């Protein structure tokens, strides 16, 4: 018998929390973006686990779509980051305050 699904769910929850900590504590925009990927992967692991537990393929289809959306998100997000870096060198998230009134 394989490892019970709850173990995978716990692992995914811990990975998600680590991603949250990274987003809230790191200030480099690229590393924050990597933490978003981490959280997406944690949720993907949850989807696959539920797919196995419920014996249903829909979870894997959801992961498939998450992968596509993550790829599109990375393309646009990194384009934004490059566009910001072109204006200001040495950007951390705290420096991006041009919307401040």
């Amino acid at each position: 018998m394989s490892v019970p699904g709850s173990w995978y769910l716990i692992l995914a929850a811990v990975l998600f929390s680590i991603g949250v900590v990274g987003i809230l504590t790191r200030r480099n925009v690229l590393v924050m973006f990597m933490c978003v990927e981490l959280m997406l992967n944690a949720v993907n692991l949850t989807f696959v686990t539920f797919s196995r537990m419920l014996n249903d393929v829909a979870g894997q289809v959801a992961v498939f779509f998450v992968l596509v959306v993550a790829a599109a998100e990375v393309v646009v997000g990194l384009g934004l980051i490059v566009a910001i870096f072109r204006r200001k060198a040495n950007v951390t998230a705290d420096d991006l305050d041009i919307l401040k009134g």
Partner: protein
Amino acid sequence: MMLATITTPDLIVFVVSGAAALVGALGVITLRNPVHAALMLVMTLFSIAVLFVEEQAQFLAAVQVMVYAGAIVVLFLFVIMLLGVDHSDSGARDAIRWQRPVAFVSAVLILLEVSVLARTRWATGAHSTTAKLTGSGAHVSELARSVFTTYLAPFEATSALLIIAVVGAVVLSRTSRNRSPVRETERPESVGGSGAEEATLGSTPEVRS
């Protein structure tokens, strides 16, 4: 007692790749150098791919390695190389002093919330509503059949999404070579004028300071 029902190879695979995923994730959020963080991210993504194989999702494991480890992290590394490694993310003071404690508290709260949800009846869905994951080796064909029949409309929507993302990336990363002369001639007569043009990212003169 529960451990006795798990076969040893499964347990070893889960423990090793789960530990590697956790170490990689901790590395992403602790290492100062963004290149090291990206490499740790590769480790986590690869471990999750191994876990996908362990959960009989072979196609997703292959796609995970190709798309995430192969494409997305390479894109990250390209951008890091393009922009130069930024060491300014050291232990410098945050703009908001209580940001770091609040981050840990909220992460613990999220973990607790997920645990509470997991203790109750989380798997209330009906079994095999879309299609069964029957037998070994049949998963890929089941996934393909679902994607191309039940989920055909979302699948086509993702192709549109990818096209839009590509166009958006091209527009964002285009240098405003042919726009700047226009702006130079425009600026004297309408100083505070064209708000719509200035609202676009990359053509805001004030940002350059």
